[in-house]
């Protein structure tokens, strides 16, 4: 089953999504900041990363840039409340594959994961 790195500083969001995605068989690791995301990415090597933007220490755009520098094949989907056009362009330039605007229905999140990695792992 696919490995998912879930990056969000909101404990409630992570708790809800970990519960939802775990129940569908995904292997999940969590990170609360962009810095934690970069560190966890290197040890966990997820199939896909779900990345918030607004976070303390390091935001999701910078973390995306750093992760893509480490692994040019990294699949990163931004999941953020800030859906302005400029933000989407900046995220794509940083290397994000897709951009979902919160609030996100968890079922749509699963569809997005399956779109990029299938049900079993990196496509």
């Amino acid at each position, binding site marked *: 089953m696919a490995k998912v790195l879930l990056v969000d500083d909101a404990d409630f969001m992570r*708790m809800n999504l970990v519960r939802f995605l775990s129940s569908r068989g995904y292997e999940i690791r969590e990170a609360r900041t962009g810095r934690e995301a970069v560190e966890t990415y290197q040890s966990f090597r997820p199939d896909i990363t779900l990345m918030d933007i*607004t976070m303390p220490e390091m935001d999701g755009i910078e973390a995306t840039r750093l992760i893509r520098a480490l692994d040019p094949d990294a699949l990163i989907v931004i999941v953020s*409340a*800030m859906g302005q056009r400029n933000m989407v362009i900046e995220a794509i330039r940083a290397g994000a594959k897709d951009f979902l605007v919160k*609030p996100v229905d968890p079922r749509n999140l699963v569809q997005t994961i399956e779109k990029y990695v299938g049900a079993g792992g990196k496509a």
Partner: protein
Amino acid sequence: MTITTQIMEECLRQIALEFAQIGVTAQPQGSVHGECKLTGGTYATVVGVSGDLVGAIALVYDDRAAQVVYGAVKFDPETELDEWTESALKEVGNILGGRICMFLERFGLNISLLPPTSVRGETLQLVMPGKMHVTMRVSIGGGTALLHLALANR
């Protein structure tokens, strides 16, 4: 482009329309110039703003409104307030802040949000740094929340 109270009031009207689509009544309360003090409520979420503007977005809830909103995001209307409430309300503030960012982008104003903070107390008093301040009263399942925008041009 610069922010005006007219733009901020239009932003609240737009949010009120979006609330109406989910059956929530919201009534803009007008604008105030100068530093504003917010009082009342038992939970408050504050989202700082950076970029073209400075200031903050604040949501102040009474207990009932906090419970209803928390129940909505947990998909459990019978839920009680617990240790996850503040985190859930912060996320609601973040999402609402995102809607405001997208609205202001139409006026050429590019802003980012800072990570939300929350405070809890019987009689909250918040001082917001914006020079222009608009407020909207939101009626939620028998409770009340106040949405405040306090923004200034950089």
